[in-house]
């Protein structure tokens, strides 16, 4: 916890010190980004819980419409304003959580920037209604907007942002710029051409071109849609400057030293490829990358035993059963019967199944009982061999998963050796309560997958 980055060795990437990042009062914004399905929301929530437990006054902004944060925090009353999450904070820390309602956020901007009548005209415009209800990109614009608002309120000393489940993690950065270039673009002026350009003598040539263009647009979109768009653009006109300024301000906020980007990924090729794009992009935008959170990494407490040796040992044990038993299948069935609590020596019922099992066990006793030594009866030894072989096969599978994940990770770290990594051990089940989030937080802070 004393250093930001621990260098473990040449082969292993530097370790991301999550607690140090959370404890540093200079850290004011943490943005969790990455492709869909890698556990971004859970990571953001777990960071929030951990930060609050370490004395930060934190707010988590989630944008995902599937309400996963609500699920994972065990509350479902998340709405467009931050609400306090009970029994999370310690040492004066607090956690607030909110879910972005993009339509309401958009409406609020309109209401704040346009006078009553004009605001009503915009809110009632069909084009606006569709735009604000969330087509490609709106979520990203509004996430940026909300982040700016939360920062401006200055009620929290740490804001943790989850990013929308976009097709690409880069959308979060690109969408606001696209909106900006649209608002500044010539197209807006074309749409408003009848009102704005007309009448200026020097613009005559351009004017002809533009009315031809609006004619084409009208043909394409249908006159009514074009009219809706034009009315919308005209009504929004006064707000454009404000939009642009705010989007720029938020973008600058993301470049400021108090911001830390965490790229979240799972040890799978697709997710790490997206992560690599994002890392490169952040560097290009001079945005501060704190590191990579690699979720759902598998580990093993018995990693000294390789998959190959485990499999060989399992085969060895299974062969033993076959030799002793005449048939391996009979051994497996016996084992199952034994494990299910049907004692071979004391059959309880006369049902056909039990009778058959007993018959087989009897045969076995004749052949094998003499070979048994010590206190174990022979069928116990067989049962244990089958169980042990199963444990070994399970272990071999685990080691193969670990090897595959490590290869995938190494491909990333060889491209970006400078990026600090926190590996989060896979949990056997889903996380949907505070205890689970705390457990994730501990694993995040540990940064290496614990044993099995």
């Amino acid at each position, binding site marked *: 916890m004393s250093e930001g980055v621990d260098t473990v060795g040449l082969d292993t990437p530097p370790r991301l010190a999550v607690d140090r990042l959370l404890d540093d009062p200079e850290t004011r914004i943490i943005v969790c980004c990455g492709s*869909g*399905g*890698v556990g971004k929301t859970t990571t953001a929530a777990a960071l929030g819980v951990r930060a609050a437990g370490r004395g930060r006054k934190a707010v988590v902004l989630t944008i995902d*419409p*599937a309400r*996963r944060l609500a699920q994972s925090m065990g509350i479902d009353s998340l709405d467009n304003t931050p609400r306090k999450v009970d029994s999370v904070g310690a040492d004066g820390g607090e956690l607030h959580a909110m879910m972005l309602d993009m339509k309401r956020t958009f409406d609020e901007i309109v209401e704040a920037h346009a006078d009553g009548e004009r605001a009503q005209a915009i809110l009632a415009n*069909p*084009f606006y209604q*569709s*735009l604000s*209800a*969330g*087509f*490609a990109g709106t979520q990203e614009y509004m996430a940026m907007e909300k982040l700016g608002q939360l920062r401006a309120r200055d009620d929290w000393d740490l804001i943790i942002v989850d990013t929308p*489940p976009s*097709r690409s993690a880069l959308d979060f950065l690109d969408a606001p710029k*696209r909106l900006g270039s*649209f608002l500044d673009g010539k*197209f807006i002026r074309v749409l408003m051409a009848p009102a704005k350009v007309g009448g200026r003598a020097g613009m005559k040539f351009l004017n002809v*071109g533009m009315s031809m*263009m609006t004619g*084409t647009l009208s043909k*394409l979109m*249908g*006159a*009514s*849609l074009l009219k*809706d768009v034009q009315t919308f653009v005209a009504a929004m006109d006064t707000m454009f400057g404000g939009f642009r300024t705010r989007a720029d301000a938020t973008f600058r906020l993301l470049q400021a030293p108090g911001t830390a980007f965490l790229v979240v990924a799972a040890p799978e090729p697709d997710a790490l*490829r997206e992560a690599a794009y994002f890392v490169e992009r952040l560097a290009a935008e001079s945005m501060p990358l704190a590191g990579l959170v690699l979720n759902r990494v598998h580990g*093993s*407490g*018995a990693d000294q*035993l390789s998959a190959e*040796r485990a499999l060989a*040992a399992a085969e*060895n044990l299974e062969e*033993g059963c076959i030799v002793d038993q005449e048939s391996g299948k009979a051994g497996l069935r016996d084992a*199952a019967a034994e*494990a*299910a*609590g049907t004692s071979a020596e004391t059959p309880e019922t006369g049902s056909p199944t039990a009778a058959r099992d007993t018959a087989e066990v009897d045969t076995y006793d004749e052949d094998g009982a003499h070979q048994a030594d010590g206190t174990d009866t022979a069928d*116990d*030894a067989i*049962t*244990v*061999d*089958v*169980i*042990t072989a*199963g*444990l*070994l096969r*399970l*272990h071999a599978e*685990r080691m193969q998963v670990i090897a*595959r994940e490590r290869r*995938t990770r190494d491909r990333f770290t060889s491209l970006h050796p400078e990026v600090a990594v926190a590996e989060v051990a896979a949990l056997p*089940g*889903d996380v949907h309560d505070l205890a689970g989030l705390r457990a994730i937080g501990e694993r995040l802070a540990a940064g290496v997958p614990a044993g*099995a």
Partner: protein
Amino acid sequence: MVSGKGGTGKTTVAAALALALAREGRRTLLVEVEGRQGLAQLFGAEALPYEERKIAVAPGGGEVFALAIDAERALLDYLQMFYKLGSAGRALKKLGAIDFATTIAPGLRDVLLTGKACEAVRRKDKTGRFVYDHVIMDAPPTGRITRFLNVNDEVAGLARFGPIHNQAQAVMKVLKSPETAVHLVTLLEEMPVQETADGIAELREAGLPVGRVVVNMVRPHHLDEDTLRAAAGDHRAGVAQALSRAGLGGSRRGGLAERLVDPLVAQAAEHAGRVELERTQRAVLNGLDVPAYELPLLGTGMDLAGLYALAKDLRKQTVAE
């Protein structure tokens, strides 16, 4: 249409389905709409251009074509096709109108993507035969799929007349017909299963045809729970001895084999927990009343051989019906 929560492997399933359906000389088109070049990665091909390209030959001689739809190119194509707007199209682009249409304008992007796929569905060759027997789209994730497919309804409502209105209506007719099926890929985990359930409800409400649930990455179950309990309980010493017999070190306390027992049993307990969780999730899926396909988890990771194996598996399941 193949959708699914992020991380469930929908691109892989879409590709495997395209291979599976390309049997006996049939031809399928695999369409990508999210610009990730996931198909090219999967097939080990170069980045796909905006052009239908043969990407694989299926066992039995069928062919799989692939197309990465680019909304901007689709719009220019569309303008060219319907309005012969060669230079005007370029002028529109210069103005930022194309950018506007494909990124900002509500839903137009989605209309173009679904529109292009529908065009491929309806396309016939000179002899009047359909060019593609099946068109498979690697569609947006479950959380957005209903909105994505239904966008044409919405746009048809916004643009109340004119060519966009007509186009949107025509696309909607194809999407809501029995020729379309929306398959949802899931894992046997809580959140993907929940999203699948929500997705099915939304699709049904919108009148869109729900196809199958595809349960992906199903793990093999090595040990049943009773066996695990036995291992964790009174058989610890026996397990240590068995490990030792198998040549993995000494079974006495502190011996190499003995030290393996705890982690192995812990791994087994984790596995049992997972099996139990999967059982619960399977029950939830069964309750959805949608027929399911199952695909196994490939231990060595996803590669081309694995893709063909999944296709074979899917083909067996589709033929069995």
